[in-house]
């Protein structure tokens, strides 16, 4: 079975779990949100998106090993500048080798959020960490602090967070221009600025929104939104997916049978 087919199977297994949750959660209402000691919603735990956005963040038909999807872009329109629209079409044509995911590179933000792999949120008042299963990507979100002085370029950007009511707002800058939003060649430059909003709506669901701004590539800011689902399986844990190492394992020192 191809990796894509396996991940697809996984995604639907997750979906099946996720669909069972809302009725019970809604009965309890918003008051049932788990809270940290400081009164903020407690986002701690393992989460995963259930979406086809990693293939294409816009609406798309099915292809072999690609499930159809309605996309995560508000209005389904990405406001590319004319040169960038042409560049995206070129990326799409070269996507098999051009996609940084095919090279096992760090996925960037927001793509890390909707890759078909789980991630874990660790929350304290001053510092939130996210550990991703995919290529052991990590984000450190420092609360109520300033971005350092640039210029800097990080694959996962520099994240600074604060709470607006029950919403965790994360401002992310200092990206590389080398990550894509999906396998369809949607892209940005190093001038990318992402503002993420994590709003828990039940103990098992987070509404995730991200405003995407990049004056070098787009004519205006645009927005994506998708739900995140809590992975509630017994003994659930983030495992590993060391993309680059597959097929390169050392065998010369394996014990004799």
């Amino acid at each position: 079975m191809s990796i894509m087919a396996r991940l697809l199977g996984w995604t639907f297994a997750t979906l099946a779990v996720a669909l069972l949750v809302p009725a019970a959660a809604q009965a309890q209402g918003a008051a049932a949100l788990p809270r940290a000691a400081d009164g903020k919603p407690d986002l701690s735990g393992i989460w995963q998106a259930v979406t086809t956005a990693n293939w294409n963040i816009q609406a798309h038909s099915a292809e072999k090993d690609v499930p159809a999807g309605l996309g995560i872009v508000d209005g389904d329109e990405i406001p590319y500048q004319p040169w960038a629209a042409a560049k995206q079409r070129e990326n799409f044509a070269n996507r098999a080798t051009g996609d940084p995911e095919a090279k096992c590179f760090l996925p960037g933000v927001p793509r890390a959020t909707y890759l078909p792999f789980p991630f874990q949120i660790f929350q304290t008042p001053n510092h939130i960490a996210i550990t991703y299963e995919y290529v052991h990507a990590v984000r450190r979100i420092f609360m109520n602090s300033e971005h350092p002085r640039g210029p800097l370029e990080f694959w996962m950007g520099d994240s600074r967070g604060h709470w607006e009511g029950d919403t965790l707002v994360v401002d992310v800058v200092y990206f590389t221009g080398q990550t894509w939003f999906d396998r369809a060649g949607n892209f940005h430059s190093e001038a990318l600025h992402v503002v993420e909003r994590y709003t828990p709506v039940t103990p098992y669901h987070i509404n995730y929104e991200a405003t995407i701004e990049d004056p070098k590539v787009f004519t205006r800011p645009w927005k994506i939104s998708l739900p995140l689902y809590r992975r509630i399986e017994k003994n659930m844990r983030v495992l590993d997916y060391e993309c680059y190492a597959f097929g390169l394992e050392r065998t010369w020192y394996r014990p004799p049978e």
Partner: protein
Amino acid sequence: MRSRFPMLLPVVALASLIASVAVDARQQEPAKPYAPPRTPDGQPDIQGIYNPVGTFYNIEDLEYQSLYQNFKPNPSLSGKSLIIDPADGKIPYQAWAAEKRKPIYQLHGDPTPEYVDPNAQCWPQGVPRHMNNREFEIFQPRGHVVIFNMAHHSYRVIPVDGSPHIPGNVKLWQGDSRGRWEGNTLVVDVTNNNDQTWFDVMASFHSDEMRIEERMTPVGPDRIEYRAVITDPKVYTRPWTFAIYFNRAKDYGTELYEEACVEVNDRNMELLKRPGRN
């Protein structure tokens, strides 16, 4: 900061090592027990950024740790080892395993791909090397100890909530860690290790049956004593114990930054290709 060239990382690590002076763990004992503060969930609080006082060049003989710097051995450290048991400071390989490892002493300086240090290929370090590599940060959110390494952003998540290990056939680069506090000592049982990580550059290897018991004891506000008992009935004749210290990196600041690694790896592997080589 953009991706760095991982072959240079050892130099950086060595600089910090030299600064803190190699310590023979056997000669250092705490004057009196240290009582660390507590986290909100009651764990002994050992959070912060630390430097390991060790070497990942050759854990069996510190004489050669200076090779990264000037390719000249340092005889004053000859015979010193990070292994405190057995007493000879050597990894107790079974005969076949000792035989397998012999070529590495000739090949490590100019390795063919199968002898390249996996760490130089940006793969996760595994345990215990994750604790003996670069600056790392200990973070203690509720119910967990999370350790972030500076080198290629690798991390370990250690639940301290009594949860059980995952099924044994699942192999992980960093293993499956489950911790508990015995007084002020964090005791971690590490299973589910794959067989792709080494303890140092010298191809000190293990099988996927390796099991590790780690003990991390804060002996002062700025120092943690680390012991790892390593068991692998497929490769060693007996369990052995690896011991180093972690010193708080006081001048480092409070935030580790991202060091991407795989992202520049192709260039590193290109550098290994020369005429007549694979």
